[in-house]
């Protein structure tokens, strides 16, 4: 199937997700379960997508593990989005000089 159809579907769904609450919701969501579920969803999705994908992405799994540790520590210390991403890359690059 054409990649453009996939891209169109991806765009349509993402846009609807962003636009529907903005345009339709005028009052706070009442259900405590749905509130809580939606509150936890982003953390769960991102965490699940990060590991073990991060250690499978590198040439040597140890480099990925190191990048994970570096990323978690840097993010824990409150380093911004871009610096954390860069630090992870540097960790992989340097460790793979020795590992690969």
């Amino acid at each position, binding site marked *: *199937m054409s*990649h*453009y159809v*996939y891209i169109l*579907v*991806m765009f349509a*769904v*993402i*846009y609807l*997700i*962003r*636009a529907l*609450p*903005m*345009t*339709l919701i*005028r009052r*706070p969501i009442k259900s*405590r*379960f*749905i509130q*809580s*579920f*939606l*509150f*936890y*969803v*982003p*953390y*769960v*999705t*991102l*965490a*699940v*997508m*990060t*590991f*073990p994908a991060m250690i*499978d*992405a*590198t040439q040597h799994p140890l480099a*990925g593990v190191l*990048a*994970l540790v570096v*990323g*978690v520590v*840097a*993010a*824990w210390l409150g*380093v*911004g*989005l*871009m610096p*954390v*991403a860069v630090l992870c*890359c*540097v960790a*992989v*690059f340097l460790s*793979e000089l020795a590992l690969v």
Partner: protein
Amino acid sequence: MRQTKTSIPALLAQGARNGIPIGMGYFAVAFALGIQAKAAGLTPFQSFLASLLCNASAGEYAGFGVIKAESGLWMMAVITFVANARYLLMSAAMSQRMDPAGKPIHRFAMSMYITDEIFAITIARPGYLSPWYLYGAALVASPCWAAGTALGCVAGDVMPARAVSALSVAIFGMFLAIIIPPARREKVIAALVAVCFAASFAMSRLPVVSALPEGTRVILLTVVIASAAALLFPVPQKPREEEAEEKGGAGR
């Protein structure tokens, strides 16, 4: 308390200025995303288009995975929904801060650019949200995102394996930068992240379930773990200041 009137060009300029560091960050991460796009078989133009339209990191990453696996369109829709569900919350939060007297068209246009970073800087400003400030930031950041993706898609294969390997973790580094700071503040989230890592690792290695496409595993884990967390640790319902604002009829 009335909001002081700022001219539209001034708001655009303010947004554009704050969009620069965001755009720089986007460019680096988008480059890594472009490598994913390339791996999924997208052309540089297709990856450019996808990024220009979608403005999503995790969402596009998951979407490119669907294209790579040649799963169906319904799978694309479901995975895109799950990977971007957090924007429902951001959009909902923004809906509470819109000027009721503003033109409805702004709600549609602003929605296009609800990303983690643009949401963060837009909602951090006091008073009603300024559409023009958001547009200014998006005008700088979104092209950086699209250009970075296309460049990653082009240059991904002329780059040495070492560099590709290093850049491939950039996007995960970004995810960590989003989930770890809240985990530091709240023990429940920290425990949740640990559980997610363990469960995700188990599902990727155990027989039978590891044969499921990655996107399916992500959906299953998200629904199960987030539901369990919502049941076990419901988020306290705070009195909504927005309601008070509505009654008061004034912006902050």
